[in-house]
């Protein structure tokens, strides 16, 4: 087992237009794209929305990582096709897959390019309480640490003869116990250590804290925000007045 797929959600410091954007712009992008994805179920329209994400992905030099995260979901896509075709239509399964790809891509665009500290600041600017914002960003900060630890646990257990067994679902689940229990125990221990470290540094001793770093909107942010909002309004208009669109956009598979 490898934890390489975790890399697909790990922030790496880079200097691209997308990385330099304000986290709130990127959050808005993720939210608008998700709403649009839920609003439509026509394959071509969803596909068109999906295509408009690519400029952002390429501008942020994220193509390789994005491919990884999509590849990680291949199994889910397969399930979606099977179950939707069985209980609904094939067309629906395809639109469902594109819909999920839009949501995952837009949110991974956010998590891949927002530094955990900025993530916290953007949550606070949305009036999320500091405690909650801090624990949220802390949990993201620890994803790579836990991935490393999981690898160490696998190494330690393999060294004493543990084998990844193939077999039925139950035996496979049982087989995970030697990995999951140490992982949970270590994570709990670390959580207590962090809590102690926070307490010893007087976390939460004052109600209104100040911030050393701040995030600010630039011209580029405003530009992208305006484009996003126009795009969103256009989406709503088209949804309300579908006659505005050519017929072929509403094509679906016959099955």
């Amino acid at each position, binding site marked *: 087992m490898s934890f390489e797929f975790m890399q697909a959600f790990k922030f790496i410091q880079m200097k691209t237009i997308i990385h330099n954007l304000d986290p709130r712009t990127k959050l808005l992008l993720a939210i608008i794209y998700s709403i649009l994805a839920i609003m439509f179920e026509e394959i071509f329209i969803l596909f068109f929305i999906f295509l408009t994400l690519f400029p952002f992905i390429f501008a942020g030099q994220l193509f390789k990582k994005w491919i990884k995260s999509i590849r990680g979901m291949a199994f889910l896509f397969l399930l979606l096709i099977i179950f939707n075709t069985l209980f609904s239509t094939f067309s629906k399964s395809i639109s469902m897959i594109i819909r999920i790809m839009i949501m995952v891509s837009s949110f991974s665009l956010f998590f891949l390019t927002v530094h955990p500290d900025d993530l916290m600041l953007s949550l606070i600017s949305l009036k999320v309480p500091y405690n909650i914002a801090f624990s949220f960003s802390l949990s993201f900060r620890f994803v790579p640490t836990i991935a490393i630890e999981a690898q160490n646990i696998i190494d330690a257990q393999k*060294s004493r*003869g*543990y084998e990844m067994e193939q077999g039925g679902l139950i035996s496979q689940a049982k087989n995970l*116990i030697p990995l999951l229990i*140490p992982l949970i125990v270590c994570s709990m221990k670390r959580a207590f250590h962090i809590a102690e470290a926070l307490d010893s540094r007087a976390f939460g001793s004052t109600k209104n804290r100040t911030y050393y770093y701040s995030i600010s909107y630039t011209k580029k942010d405003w530009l992208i925000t305006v484009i996003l909002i126009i795009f969103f309004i256009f989406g709503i208009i088209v949804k309300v007045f579908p006659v505005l669109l050519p017929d072929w956009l509403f094509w679906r598979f016959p099955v």
Partner: protein
Amino acid sequence: MEKKLENLQILVNHLTYHYPDGTIALKGINLNIYSGEIVGIMGKNGAGKSTLIKTFNGLLKPTTGTVYIENDEVNNVLMSKLTRKVGIVFQNPDLQLFANTVEDEIRFSLKNLNFTKTELENQINLTLEKFKLKKFQNRTPFTLSGGEKKRLAIASIMCRNPEIIVFDEPTIGQDAEGVEFIRNLIKEKHSEGKTIIIVTHDIEFAIDNIPRTILMADGLIIADGPTNKILSQDQILNIGSLISPQLIILSKFLIDSGIKVPDDVYLKENMIQFLGSFFKEKMEISEGGKF
């Protein structure tokens, strides 16, 4: 045992290892370890020590180069066979304890070794007694103290009776009793003819217990030889971010002060003996016994 070709147990040739993220951890390692040796591996954090030992039991496959464990090339052997020959005791016991009872923890390690039921129970009992864990037999491992957990983690590897035993930082976080236990265990396993490899930063432990040391820096072996020689050369120590053990500093000071000292005073007993006879001699010279 002598350093003869037929006693060669680990042979590493031009070994390199690249991690998937592009980090080059080993840059061409050549190493011979003979049967029955006690070998220390020292070096800064990130020097490649852990990566090197993980290639011995197949956890990591060499990127280029070869590693032979007793005539078997690690790339061509199943990991289950390698872990039987090479037992690695990891630094943090919390990474491997999971079972309901201490006994089950040992049982898990013996699972794939084809023991009959009575043999299995015997082996578990023997191990528990040897590692002074019998009284905890039915307790959950999570309520043990740090030292007891470490003992259990070591026991869970030792019960598999590997020919080559690798300790990763065995003395870290251990109290005097724990260190003494590990010291005795190493002596015992050495007398049984096992090969022992110890990754450590603990120079005082190394000078007392490890005859041969390999010093690594930046993915390469920069020194390989008797521990006392390596830990007394300033240039090597600087590269490895190490400081000399106290007795080597003392013996250097004595030599600089013009006092003739034997070669082996870096060992505690020898230094005590030397200083004892040295002062006795001095006392006899000055006023027939009065200091």
